[in-house]
């Protein structure tokens, strides 16, 4: 007996959207907005920009959904729209930006990794939460949009190299090399923070 292949629910939702069912697209918005928000926000470091960009990302996806042929997963497709739109936005914005750290989820203080990190690392222990977050955001903003995208997807969102390479349309080697360079740059910025 042939094994039943689990059906990806996204395929059905996409097909329904393509057939004109707007509610199916709403379900895709509900499913992907938290994850895509994290991606866009960590690349822009600004909640208002992240909100506006994410609205545009979903609007573009909705307009282009009839062109989606399912050669990649919907997950990869919508992530590549989000990354490309955010990179273009960052290139246009240049150095004009304002970090926004309001609405930050303070559950971070209960996170196991955070507790462990603050307990073992004395410079970090000395720094308060907002200062640490601000330093991380500052360090991220010093990276180029392409490097920031790779760090966001790999280090913050925990995506594998193969998935990132599909989203960005570059080889896994390029992803590894961008990560290496980005980590080296971040290391230099955080070293400055430690010396303070």
């Amino acid at each position: 007996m042939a094994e039943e292949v689990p059906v990806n629910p996204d395929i059905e939702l996409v097909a329904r959207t393509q057939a004109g069912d707007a509610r199916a697209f709403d379900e895709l918005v509900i499913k992907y907005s938290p994850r895509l928000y994290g991606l866009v926000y960590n690349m822009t470091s600004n909640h208002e920009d992240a909100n506006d960009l994410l609205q545009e990302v979903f609007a573009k996806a909705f307009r282009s959904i009839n062109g989606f042929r399912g050669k990649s997963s919907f997950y990869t497709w919508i992530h590549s729209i989000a990354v490309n739109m955010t990179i273009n936005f960052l290139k246009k914005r240049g150095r004009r930006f304002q970090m926004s750290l309001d609405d930050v989820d303070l559950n971070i203080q209960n996170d196991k990794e955070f507790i462990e990190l603050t307990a073992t690392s004395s410079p970090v222990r000395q720094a308060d939460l907002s200062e640490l977050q601000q330093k991380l955001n500052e360090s991220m903003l010093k990276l180029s949009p392409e490097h920031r995208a790779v760090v966001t997807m790999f280090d913050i969102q925990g995506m594998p190299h193969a998935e990132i390479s599909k989203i960005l349309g570059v080889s896994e080697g390029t992803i590894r090399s961008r990560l290496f360079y980005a980590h080296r740059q971040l290391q230099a910025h955080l070293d400055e923070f430690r010396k303070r």
Partner: protein
Amino acid sequence: MQEDPDEISKLLRLKRFEQPTPDYFERFLEEFKDRQRAQLLREPAWRIAWDRMWAFLGEQMRPRLGYGLASTAVLAAAAIASFNILESRSVEVASAPEQQHPAAQTASLNLNADQVQLPDLPSLTPSTAHTASLNTPRYVMDARPVSYEPPSSF
């Protein structure tokens, strides 16, 4: 002291907690729908039709369509260029009789006449006539005529 690369990754992972409050995502969908409706009302019909057609063509068709448009543009440019060349040539041909040799202009061939009168051709002067065959050939080597060399005797 150098930062441990794992520590950088750990620090970066903390950024995943920078999330808005849960009700934000509920509002997000409503805002998205409102924006979509507002955009539909704002956008002209031709723009909506263009977007839908472009989306329908899909990502696979777009490169082919691009090549097709580029080829058409090249062919159109070539057609315009060749038309201009042909047009300038026809202008040249039209003005050509005025620049013909005077002898050709005065030439009038009367095929019905008993004797065909040829137009006057410029006469060949001895200087321009081929007279080389009248003289004995002279072979020149090292800028000195060979015929001037004394015959070698073995």
